[in-house]
């Protein structure tokens, strides 16, 4: 339903890996170029994704949105940044009217408007980030900087990958990444290294990015709450059905230092590509096949795709052969 149909907009995760090289965990953050700093994207799947996101937020508010009462001012700051970015990136789709502190945000794609007194939480029914976040297909996590660490204080998530705003609320960056079983070349736990990097380098006006990826078996969203449902489905994948069931799940992550609160906003743009659709880009297909063929088991275990990596690789091997024969 949400599979990327415009591959030019799909954040293919292995662009920066040299041909013939394999994927290993590393600190792969990159500073965003000035023309890429805006995180608002409108893809052909925008309306479907927004519909799905709102449905999840309505049906499972406790699962999908969490915050502390003291974060209101921080949330307004984020909401202002997102609305401003939306208008800058897509003036044909979004409009923001300001009359003193009385603001109206127009979403012309959905033909909706949100009117509120900026900074006054009592003028809206939802919390500021929950309200404005529902106009964007991306997920949002606000990590507050205290004691040389980052604490999760607000999160709106509809495409979880082994993450839960409810469970992870209040955790430090290191606690959230506790399951990451890798260390850097210098022996420092990777999560600690990345945290230090974020704290030092993500500055106001200087956002960074990285691309995270995973494989999902017939699911858009795997959170802890539904572990009993999606856990077993991972065993249904075969070399015959992997093309349909298995998707490359890509999470384009943006990191913004909020100038007033000093918190770091994580914006997560999640897109999916079915294994069968890799055939549309043979160079992506060949590289993905090569990388997945050589994934270390601890990495597959951590990412949760050990149960179906073998049939997926088998499927890709067959697809590579088929595409290569067609090309001759």
């Amino acid at each position: 339903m949400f599979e990327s149909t415009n591959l030019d907009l799909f954040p293919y995760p292995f662009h920066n890996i040299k041909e013939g090289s394999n994927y290993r965990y590393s600190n792969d953050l990159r500073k965003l170029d000035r023309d890429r700093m805006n995180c608002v994207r409108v893809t052909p799947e925008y309306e479907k994704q927004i519909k799905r996101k709102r449905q999840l937020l309505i049906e499972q508010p406790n699962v999908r949105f969490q915050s502390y009462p003291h974060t209101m001012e921080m949330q307004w700051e984020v909401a202002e940044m997102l609305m401003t970015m939306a208008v800058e990136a897509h003036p044909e789709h979004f409009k923001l009217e300001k009359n003193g502190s009385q603001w109206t945000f127009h979403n012309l794609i959905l033909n909706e408007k949100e009117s509120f007194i900026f900074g006054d939480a009592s003028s809206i029914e939802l919390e500021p980030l929950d309200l404005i976040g529902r106009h964007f297909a991306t997920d949002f996590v606000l990590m507050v900087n205290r004691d040389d660490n980052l604490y999760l204080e607000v999160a709106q998530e509809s495409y979880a990958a082994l993450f839960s705003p409810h469970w992870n609320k209040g955790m430090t960056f290191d606690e959230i990444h506790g399951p990451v079983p890798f260390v850097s070349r210098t022996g420092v736990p990777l999560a600690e290294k990345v945290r230090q990097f974020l704290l030092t380098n993500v500055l106001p006006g200087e956002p960074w990015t990285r691309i995270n990826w995973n494989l999902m078996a017939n699911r858009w969203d795997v959170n802890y709450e539904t572990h009993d449902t999606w856990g077993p489905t991972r065993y249904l994948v075969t070399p015959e059905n992997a093309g349909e069931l298995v998707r490359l799940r890509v999470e384009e992550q943006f990191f913004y230092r909020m100038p007033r609160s000093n918190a770091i906003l994580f914006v997560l743009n999640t897109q999916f590509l079915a294994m069968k659709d890799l055939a549309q880009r043979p160079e992506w297909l060949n590289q993905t096949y090569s990388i997945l063929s050589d994934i270390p088991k601890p990495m597959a275990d951590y990412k949760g795709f050990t149960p179906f990596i073998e049939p997926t690789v088998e499927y890709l091997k067959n697809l590579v052969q088929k595409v290569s024969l067609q090309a001759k």
Partner: protein
Amino acid sequence: MVYNSPVLFDKSATMVEKFTVRQKRRKLLIISTLPREAGLIQQLLDESNGQQQYELIEIHDEFSLKNIGDVLNRQKMGTQLYILAPWDEAVTIFTEAIEAGFSEDEIQTHILGEKKRYVYCMKCYHLQEVEVDETDTICYHCQISLEIGPFFSRERKGYIGYPYNPALVIAN
């Protein structure tokens, strides 16, 4: 208490088998609910060898436990706290100490008897006690099977309980 205040759990950084002296502390405050563990306290005092001032509070009833906050609040900077108690009393003392401004680094806890462990059901968000060595359990509230994970949440005050369907696990 604020949301990221430390809480006492079985793998708390404050848990020790034996008390040790922190050289830069000016005072040792020992709070014990069981005087028969005098050996552990004496060992600490021997190690200190009179270099630090010490205060020993022995709690014998619920009334004095309730007033432990007063004792903790009147402590000055540089006090190292030693808690020697069964689980429930240790939790009360620990929580009061955090409230009074102690950090985990300033507390050592020795539990007499069994430690308690809690699991947080990720299906229904119910918190329940489990045995220390249990790896799986059933949620009392929603009856789902839970695999007890290694990750602890201060906010939820328990270890993560991953819901699963045992019939499907066996089939795999």
